[in-house]
C-alpha cells in the first residue's frame, strides 16, 4: 500500500496547496483597510474550463485505481509461489507505438493552437491508428502468453499481467471513443475553434497519462521495479 500512500500524499499536497491559494486560511472579515482587494484569492485571469478540471479529477481517480493495482501487485509478489511469466517481445514494439500515439496527439495540439485544421486531422488519425495498433499488439502479447500456457489461473503473476494490461487497455478504449468523437468534430468543423482546441488538448493529456501509466506498468512487469517493491514491503512489514 506504500504506492497508494505515495500517490495519496501527492494528491493531498496538490489539494491543500490549491485550497490555500483559494484563501481558506484567510479571515477577510478581520482585515482592516481597503476591502476591495481582499478577494485576490479569486480565480485566475482565465479560469480553466470545466472539461479540463473534470479530466484532472478523473485522472486522479484513474491514478488511484492504478496505484492500488500496483500496491496489490507488490504485496502479492512477495508470496513464494510468485513466478513472473516471460515478457513477450511485442511489448517493446507496443511501448514504441503508444509513445508515438502520444506524440502524434501532442502534434495535433500544437497544430490546433496554430489553427492548422489539416494537420490536426492527420495527427489525430495517426494517433488513433497507432493507439489501435497498440491494442492489437497487447492482444498479440496475450495470445503469445496463452499459447505458452501461462494461464491466469496457473499463477497470480500471470493473472496480474492480464489484469494490469487489461485495465489499461480498457482505459485506452474509452479514450479512443473520446478521440473518435473529437476527430468527428474536427472533420465537421470549418476552422479550428477554441472549444475544439480544448477537446484535442484533453485527448492529448489523457494519452500522456496512459503512456505514463504504461511505462510504469511495463517497468513493473519486466522486473525493473522489483527493488522498489521490496522497499515498499519493508516499509509495511
Amino acid at each position, binding site marked *: *500500500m506504500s504506492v*497508494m*500512500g505515495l500517490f*495519496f500524499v501527492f*494528491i*493531498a499536497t496538490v*489539494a*491543500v496547496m490549491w*485550497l490555500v491559494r*483559494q*484563501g*481558506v*486560511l*484567510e*479571515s*477577510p*472579515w478581520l482585515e*482592516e483597510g481597503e*476591502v*476591495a482587494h*481582499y*478577494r485576490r*484569492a*479569486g*480565480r485566475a485571469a482565465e*479560469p480553466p*474550463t*470545466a472539461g479540463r*478540471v*473534470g479530466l484532472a*479529477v*478523473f485522472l*486522479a*481517480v484513474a491514478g*488511484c*485505481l492504478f496505484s*492500488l*493495482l500496483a*500496491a*496489490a501487485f507488490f*504485496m*502479492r509478489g512477495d*508470496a*513464494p*509461489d*510468485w513466478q513472473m511469466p516471460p515478457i513477450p517481445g511485442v511489448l517493446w514494439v507496443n511501448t514504441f507505438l503508444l509513445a508515438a500515439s502520444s506524440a502524434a496527439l501532442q502534434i495535433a495540439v500544437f497544430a490546433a493552437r496554430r489553427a492548422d485544421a489539416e494537420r490536426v486531422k492527420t495527427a489525430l488519425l495517426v494517433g488513433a491508428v497507432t493507439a489501435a495498433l497498440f491494442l492489437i499488439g497487447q492482444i498479440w502479447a496475450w495470445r503469445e502468453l496463452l499459447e505458452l500456457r501461462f494461464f*491466469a*489461473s496457473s*499463477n*497470480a503473476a500471470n*493473472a*496480474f499481467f492480464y*489484469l494490469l494490461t487489461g*485495465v489499461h487497455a480498457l482505459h485506452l478504449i474509452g479514450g479512443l471513443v473520446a478521440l473518435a468523437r473529437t476527430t468527428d468534430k474536427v472533420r465537421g468543423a470549418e476552422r479550428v475553434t477554441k472549444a475544439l482546441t480544448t477537446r484535442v488538448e484533453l485527448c492529448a493529456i489523457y494519452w500522456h497519462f496512459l503512456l505514463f501509466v504504461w511505462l510504469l506498468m511495463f517497468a513493473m512487469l519486466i522486473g525493473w521495479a522489483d527493488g522498489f517493491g521490496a522497499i515498499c514491503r519493508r516499509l*509495511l*512489514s
Partner: protein
Amino acid sequence: MTDASVPQNVAPPPAEVPDVDLYHAHSWITKYVFSQDAKVIAIQYAGTAITVGILALVLSWVIRLQLAFPGAIPFIDANVYYQSVTMHGMIMVVYMLTAIFLGGFGNYLIPLMVGARDMVFPYVNMLSYWVYLIATLVLVSSYFFPGGPTGAGWTLYPPQSILTGTPGHEYGIILMLVSLILFIVGFTMGGLNYVVTVLQARTRGMTLMRMPLTVWGIFAAAVMALLAFPGLFVACLMLLLDRTLGTSFFMPSLVELGERKDYVGGSPILFQHLFWFFGHPEVYIVALPAFGIVSDLISVHARKNIFGYKMMVWAIIAIGVLSMVVWGHHMYISGMDPWFGFFFAVTTLAIAVPTALKVYNWVLTLWHADIHFTTPMLFALGFLVTFVNGGITGLYLGNVIVDVPLSATLFVVAHFHMVMGIAPVLVIFGAIYHWYPKITGRMMDERLGKIHFWITFLGAYAIFFPMHYLGVLGMPRRFYEMGETAFVPASAATLNIVITVIALAVGFAQSIFFYNLFKSLKYGAPAGGNPWRAASLEWQTPETPPGHGNWGQQLPVVYRWPYAYSVPGAPEDYLPQNAPPMRGEHSP
C-alpha cells in the same frame, strides 16, 4: 472599518461565471424519467435509496427476530440469517447512505447552494443515476437466483466468501461483486460532477469560504469517495476473477470438503487492505455530508451564525485527509505488525481532534442562541447526542489493546450503528424536514414530525445502547445461535428480546414519516419561498420549487457568507447571501 460612503463596493464579487447553455427537455420522458436536471436526478436517487433502505430495514428485523427468538421463526434458517446480515449491511452502507447523501442531497443542493443552473456535466449525471439503478437491481435480483444472495457478511472476506460453505456462493457473490463494480462506475460519474460543479460553477461572489458547510461536507465526501472507491473496485474485480476464472489473488491453497482446490498462495490479507482502504473512508463519506447538513440546520434554526466557520472547513478537510490513512484499525486482529497497529491507532485517535472541534463548534453555536425547536432542529440535536456517543466508543475501539477483546462483539455493532447508522439517518430525516418545503413548496406536518423524532431517537437509543453491554459481556456479532454459552448470562437473552421488540416498533413507526411525506405533498401548508427565513442561496430562488435552470433570467450575485443571522441593524434577523450589501456591513 469600512468606508460607508461606497456601500456598493463592499466585497466586490470576482470575475463573472459565464452562463451556460441549458439542456431543455422536450417530452415528459426526458423531463421526468431520463432527465438531465439535477433536481429530478436527486429525487430519483433519493427515492431509489430509500426504497432499498426499506428493504434493508426489513432485513434487520429478520436479524433481530433470530437473535431474540433463535429458531422460533421457521423461515429464518442459518442461510437466511447470514444473507440478511450481509444484504442489510451492504445496502445500508453503500446503496442507501452513500447514494442518498451524495446522489440525493448532493444533486439537489450543490447547484442551488452555489448558485449554478445545473451540474456541469448533466448527461453524465443522468447516466450516473441509471447505472446506480442497474447496480441496485442487480443486487436485489440475487434473491431470485438459485442459492439466493451471498451470505458472506458485508465485508465479503475471502476465502470464505467464495467457497461452497457460504450461502449464495453460486450466483449471489457474483451478482454482489458485479453490482458493486457497477455502483462504483456510476458513482464516479456522479462524483466527478459534484466536484467539478463546486470547483467551476459557483456564481459570482461565491468564493470557497462563502459556501455553506453542507456544500463543503458533500464536496469533501465526494473527493474522498472518488479516491476511496477504487479500493473497493480493485478488491471486487480481483475477487470476481478469483471466483470466475480461478485466479489466486486472494485465495490461498486450501482443502475444501476433502477436495484440494486449485488456488495457490493468495493473500486474504491483501483483500482486507484493499477493502478497508475503501471501507474506512466510507464512514466519513457518510459522516461529512451529515456534518455539513447539521451545521446548516443548527445555524438556521438557532438563528445564529455557525461558530468558527473557518475551523469547521479545516476540520472537514483534516478529517477527510486523516480518514484515508486509518484503515488498518479494522484489521487489528489480522495479525499485523504491532508497530503498524500503533501507527493506525495514532491516526485513528488523531481524528478525534477535528471531530471534537466540530462538536464544540456546534455546541457553541447553540450557546445563547435563539433556538427554535422545529423538527429539523430536533433531529440535528438528536444527531449531536448520538454522534458523540458513537464517537466516544470509537475511541475505545481505536486502541489496539481495547479493540482486541471487543472485536467482533456486539460492542462494535453498537458503536458503528450509533456513529454511522443512527447519526446520519437522523440527519437525513432532519434534512428532509428542512428542505421538503423547497422541494415541494409545502410544509411537512410539524406535530407528526415531532412524534416521529421522539420515537426514532429514543427508540434507536433503546436499541443500540444496551447492545454495548451485550458486547462487553462478550456476545459475538454474526452468530446465528448462541446455544449454551457459559459466559453469557440468561438475562442477555431477555435483553435481546427487548431490543428486538423495540426495533420492530421503531421500524414500523417510520410509517409516520412516510405518511407525513405523502400527505404533505397534497395537504401540507403552502411554504412560500423561504419558510425558515434562511440566508443560504437555495432559499432565494425566484420559484418554489425551483424551475429548470434554478435562477430565472439572471444568476444570483453573492455578497456574503451563508450565516448572516441576527445581524445588527439588518431589516430582518437574517441577510440572504444575495441581498445587496448594507451600509458599513462587513460580513465574511
